C-alpha cells in the first residue's frame, strides 16, 4: 500500500473546504493559456479557468449574484446567476462555472428570466418580515434583486410567523435567522476567511439553517466578534448589536458630558454611506456633524494610537533588551500587537498558551477610555461619573472589548459605547445632516491631535509602520531611512508579509542593537493569523521581533463595522485615503505628538511602561480556550487565570 496523502491534506481542510482546486490535474492548467468564449454574441478570450461570471464582467454584462462574494470561495448555491451554456441541458451557475473549453453562453433568455424570478419568489417565501421594518432596508441584495426582476408579489406564499426568533446573546452580533436566505457567505467567511468556523449549516432540506456551533446562541461560542459575516450578509439576517438609542439618550441628557473619539478607518469610509466614492476621507466634516449632533467633545483616537506606539514600542524594546542583554529566557519574542480585539479573542481561544507574546498595551480605544475618565476629567474638573465615553470604530469586536470586565481602570467602565461606522451614519441621517456638504472643523482640545503614524493604524501594516518610525528613531537617533518616512516594505494587501530592517548604528543606550536586523511580520484576517500562529508553534518565528496582526482583511479599514459592501477594491481605496492623508499631517511620528509629550510630562510622569501607565494603559488577557460564554466571563473574571506578561 502506498503512502496516503491524508495527514498533510486534512490540516488544510478546515480552511479550504469548498475551494476546490479547479482542474488541478489537467495539463492545460499548467500552461496558463487562454480560451475563447462567446457571451451574448460578444466574443472574447479569457485565461483558462476564468468563470463565466468573471468573463461577463469583462464585457460589462451584468449577471445577478447573491451567494457570490469577491472575498470568498465559490458556493454556487443560490442559483440566481444561472445562464445557458450551449450544449448543456440544464442552466449553469455562472459564478462557479470555470471556462476550460470554448463555449457559447447566453445570459438572458425566457427560461433564465423565469428561473431567476422563481428563485427570487422562493427566497422571499421564507424571508420573514417586511422591508420597511428591516435594518438593511435600502441596502439589501435580495430587495434589489426583487426590484430588478419585477418580483412584486409573493407568488409562492410568504411566511407569516418567525421560525427562529432573534439571537442577541452576543455583545457584538445579532443573528436574525428569519431573514436568512442560506447563501452561506457567513459560513464561508467564518471558516475560510477568518479561520474561526463557528457557523455551519445544520439539518437538511427545508429544515436547513445556519447555526452557531452545536446550535448554541452566538454569545456562547468561540466567535471573535470580528463582524466579517455581518459585512458579507446580503440581507438583514446578521447585523451589529446597536447602541444608537443609548448614545442618543446620553446626548439628550443635559447632566451627561458626552465625548466621542473617532478612529481613522471609519473616517475614510463613512462617506460611502452618503454616496461619496470609496476612499474619500471626511474627517473634518465628520467633526462638524458630531458637534452639531450634540456631542460635547469630539476627540481623535489617533492621540491614543500615538500613546499605544509609545507604550507598545517601549515594551518591545524592553523585551528585546531583557532577552539580549539580561539574557532573561522568560521574555517572549516576537511580540504581537494587541490593538485588534478580534485578534485578541482569537488568540485567547485558539492559542492561549502563546498569550505571553501579545503586547500588554491596551488598544487605542481602551487607552482613550482610561485617559478620558482620568486625566481629561481631572484637568477639566469633570466628574468622571458624568462622562459618557463613546467611540466611533470600524469594528464590531470593539463593542465586546469595551465590555471586557478588566477594562475599567479609570474606576468606571472606560468606554461606554462603541458605535460602528454604519451606526454613526444612521445617526447622522436621523439628524438630517448632509455629511458631504458640511463645513470642515477641527477636533477639540486637548485630545484632538494625532500623528500620521497613528492615522495609518487603519490599514494593515500601519501599526508596524508607526512602530518602526518611532522605535528606529529611539534606537538610532535618526529617522527611518525611507523616502518621506513611508515604510513601504510593510504596506500592501498580501495576507502575510514580512520585512527586515538593519540597524546600522545605535545610540548609547541601545548600542547592543548595532548591527542587528529587526525582523517583522504582518498578517490580516484571522485565517492568516492562524497560519502565523502555526509557524510560531513550529518555532519558525524565533528570530522575529514584532508581528502585527489585524483580525479583519485589509486591517481596520476592512472592519466588520464598515459600510456594506466592502470589497477588495473598496479596501484598496480606503487604504489610499489613509496613506495620502498621513502625508499631509504636521506630525508624522507618534513621539512627535505634542499632546503625547504633555501627558508624559503632566500625568504619566514616569514615562512609558511605568507603574501608572501599566495601571491605565496596559491590560491582561484570559486563557479562554473553549470557555465560551462572554457574559459569564464578567462573573468569572476574578477566578479565571490572567495571562500576559508584566514588565
Amino acid at each position, binding site marked *: 500500500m502506498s503512502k496516503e*496523502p491524508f495527514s498533510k491534506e486534512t490540516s488544510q481542510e478546515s480552511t479550504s473546504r469548498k475551494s476546490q*482546486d479547479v*482542474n488541478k490535474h489537467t495539463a492545460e492548467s499548467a500552461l496558463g493559456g487562454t480560451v475563447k468564449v462567446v457571451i451574448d454574441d460578444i466574443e472574447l478570450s479569457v485565461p483558462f479557468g476564468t468563470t463565466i461570471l468573471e468573463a461577463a464582467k469583462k464585457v460589462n454584462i451584468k449577471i445577478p449574484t447573491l451567494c457570490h462574494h469577491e472575498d470568498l470561495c465559490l458556493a454556487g448555491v443560490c442559483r440566481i446567476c444561472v445562464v445557458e451554456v450551449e450544449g448543456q441541458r440544464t442552466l449553469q451557475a455562472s459564478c462557479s462555472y470555470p471556462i476550460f473549453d470554448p463555449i457559447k453562453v447566453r445570459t438572458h433568455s425566457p427560461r433564465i428570466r423565469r428561473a431567476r424570478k*422563481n*428563485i427570487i419568489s422562493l427566497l422571499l417565501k421564507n424571508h420573514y418580515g417586511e422591508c420597511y421594518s428591516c435594518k438593511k432596508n435600502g441596502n439589501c441584495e435580495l430587495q434589489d434583486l426583487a426590484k430588478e426582476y419585477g418580483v412584486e408579489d409573493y407568488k409562492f406564499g410568504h411566511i407569516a410567523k418567525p421560525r427562529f426568533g432573534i439571537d442577541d446573546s452576543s455583545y457584538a452580533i445579532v443573528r436574525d435567522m428569519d431573514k436568512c436566505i442560506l447563501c452561506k457567505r457567513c459560513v464561508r467567511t467564518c471558516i475560510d476567511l477568518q479561520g474561526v468556523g463557528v457557523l455551519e449549516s445544520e439539518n437538511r*432540506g*427545508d429544515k436547513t439553517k445556519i447555526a452557531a456551533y452545536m446550535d448554541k446562541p452566538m454569545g456562547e461560542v468561540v466567535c471573535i466578534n470580528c463582524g466579517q459575516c455581518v459585512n458579507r450578509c446580503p440581507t438583514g439576517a446578521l447585523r451589529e448589536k446597536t447602541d444608537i438609542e443609548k448614545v442618543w439618550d446620553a446626548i439628550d441628557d443635559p447632566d451627561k458630558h458626552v465625548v466621542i473619539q473617532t478612529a481613522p478607518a471609519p473616517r475614510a469610509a463613512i462617506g460611502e454611506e452618503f454616496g461619496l466614492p470609496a476612499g474619500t476621507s471626511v474627517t473634518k466634516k465628520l467633526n462638524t456633524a458630531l458637534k452639531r449632533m450634540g456631542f460635547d467633545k469630539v476627540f481623535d483616537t489617533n492621540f491614543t494610537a500615538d500613546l499605544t506606539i509609545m507604550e507598545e514600542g517601549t515594551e518591545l524594546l524592553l523585551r528585546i533588551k531583557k532577552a539580549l542583554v539580561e539574557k532573561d529566557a522568560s521574555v517572549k519574542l516576537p511580540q504581537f500587537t494587541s490593538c485588534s480585539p478580534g485578534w485578541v479573542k482569537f488568540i485567547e481561544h485558539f492559542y492561549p498558551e502563546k498569550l505571553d507574546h501579545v503586547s500588554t498595551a491596551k488598544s487605542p480605544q481602551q487607552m482613550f477610555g482610561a485617559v478620558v475618565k482620568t486625566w481629561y476629567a481631572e484637568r477639566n474638573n469633570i466628574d468622571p461619573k458624568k462622562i459618557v465615553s463613546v467611540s466611533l470604530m470600524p469594528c464590531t469586536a470593539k463593542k465586546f472589548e469595551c465590555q471586557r470586565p478588566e477594562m475599567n481602570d479609570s474606576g468606571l467602565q472606560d468606554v461606554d459605547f462603541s458605535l460602528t461606522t454604519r451606526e454613526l451614519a444612521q445617526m447622522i441621517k436621523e439628524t438630517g445632516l448632509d455629511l458631504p456638504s458640511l463645513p470642515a472643523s477641527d477636533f477639540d482640545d486637548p485630545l484632538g491631535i494625532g500623528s500620521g503614524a497613528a492615522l495609518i493604524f487603519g490599514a494593515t501594516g500601519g501599526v508596524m509602520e508607526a512602530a518602526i518610525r518611532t522605535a528606529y528613531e529611539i534606537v538610532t537617533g535618526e529617522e527611518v531611512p525611507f523616502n518621506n518616512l513611508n515604510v513601504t516594505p510593510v504596506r500592501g494587501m498580501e495576507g502575510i508579509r514580512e520585512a527586515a530592517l538593519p540597524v546600522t548604528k545605535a545610540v548609547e543606550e541601545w548600542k547592543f542593537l548595532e548591527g542587528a536586523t529587526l525582523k517583522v511580520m504582518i498578517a490580516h484576517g484571522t485565517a492568516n493569523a492562524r497560519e502565523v500562529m502555526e509557524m510560531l508553534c513550529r518555532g519558525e518565528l524565533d528570530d522575529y521581533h514584532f508581528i502585527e496582526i489585524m483580525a479583519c482583511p485589509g486591517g481596520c479599514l476592512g472592519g466588520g463595522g464598515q459600510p456594506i459592501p466592502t470589497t477588495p477594491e473598496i479596501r484598496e481605496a480606503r487604504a489610499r485615503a489613509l496613506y495620502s492623508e498621513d502625508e499631509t499631517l504636521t506630525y508624522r511620528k507618534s513621539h512627535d505628538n505634542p499632546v503625547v509629550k504633555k501627558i508624559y510630562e503632566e500625568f504619566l510622569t514616569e514615562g512609558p511602561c511605568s507603574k501608572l501607565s501599566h495601571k491605565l494603559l496596559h491590560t491582561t488577557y484570559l486563557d479562554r480556550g473553549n470557555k465560551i460564554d462572554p457574559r459569564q466571563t464578567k462573573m468569572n473574571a476574578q477566578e479565571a487565570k490572567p495571562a500576559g506578561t508584566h514588565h
Partner: protein
Amino acid sequence: MCKRQGPVIFSDIDPLSGLKKALNMSRIEVVEEVRASNIRGRGGAGFPTGVKWNLAAAAQAEYKYVVCNADEGEPGTFKDRILLTEYPSLILEGMIIAAYAIGAQKGYIYLRGEYKSLKQEFERLAEEMRKAGTLGEKILGKEKFNFDIEIRLGSGAYVCGEETALIESMEGQRGEPRNRPPFPVNTGFLGYPTIVNNVETIAAIPHIILKGSDWFKKIGTEKSAGSKILSVSGDCGKPGVYEVAFGTTVAEILKLAEAKDTKAVQIGGASGTCIGESDFNRKIAFEDIATGGSVIIFDKTRNMLGAVENFLEFFREESCGQCTPCREGIPVLLEGTAKIKSGECSRGYLNDLFSLAETMQCASKCGLGQTAPNAFLAVMDNFKEDFSIKK
C-alpha cells in the same frame, strides 16, 4: 442461496477470471474494452463508463481513487443490496480491474449506512484476498500494481448517492454536491482523480473483460448495451430483483412480476417517471425509459396524487438544502399537490407550479433537485382523472 439467472451479471463466471484476463492486457486495452462495450453508468444518469475511465486514466496525478457507489437509496431499489450480499467478490474484482485501468492505488466502497451489516463480510473477504495475493501489493504477482480497498459507511443521506456529495461525505464534510466542473475524474476525493461507479456497473466489468465487448453489445438495444437489474415492488404477485436485457418492455416486466390491474408504474424511483397503461409497451433503455432500477407498481385502487405526495415528502427530507430551487421548491410543490388534492388549485397556480418545476429541473445544482419534480409532472400529465383543477 438460490442461483439467480440473467444475461450479464447473473450469468456464469469463474471467480477472478475477469481480473486475470485484465492483468494480461495493457491498461489502455482494458479501458478500450470497457469503452467499446458501450456500457453506461447503472446508477441512473447513464454516463458512459469507458469515457469516465479514460478521463481518469489520462489524468496525471500522484494518487487516484476508485469508489464503488453502494449508497443505494432510491425509493424502491434494493438490487445493489442483493449484489452486495450475494456477489461481493465480483464487486471487489470489478474494482480491482477499474484500479488497474486508471492507475489507482486505493479504492473505497461507500456503503449505505443501513447496509452496515455487510461491512464485516466485505472486510473478511478483502483480508482473504490479501492473503491470497489478489488484493494489496503486487496483485496476482503483477509488478507495480498495488491496490487496496476500504469500506466506508454513509449515514443515511440519500443525496450522498450523488457522486460529488459522496466524495464530500468521504472527506468528512456535510454531504453536499459540489460544483461541476471540475469533475471527480479530474478533481475528486481529496482533490485527486476519482472514478465513482455504481455497484451494478462494477459488477458487470469482470464479465465484459472476460467475455468481450462484442458479447456485451449483443445484449440489449443498439443504444443501450447490456442488461439492467430491476428492483420490482408494489402491487404485484412476485416482487423481487430481475436482470433483464435493455429493450425489455414494461408490459413484459409486469408479466414477470405477475402484476394485475396495473394502473401506473413508477420507474426510476422517486426521481423517475410515472407512466400509465398506454405507455406499457415502452422499453427500459437509455433511449426510452432510463432507470436506476426501481420499478414500483400501482394497481387501480391507488390515487396517484398520494404517490406524488409521498415522493415529494421524501425529497423534502433528503434535499441537502444548499441550493434554492431544490430546498425551497420542493415544499412549494408539496403544498401545491395538497391544494390539487383538495380541489383548491386554480389553473393559474398550476401554471406557476409548472414554471417552478421547470426551474427546479434546469437550475438546481444536482440531480436530486433536477429530478424531484419528475413524478409530479408525470402524474399531472398522465393521470388527469385523479384530480380536478378549479376553473
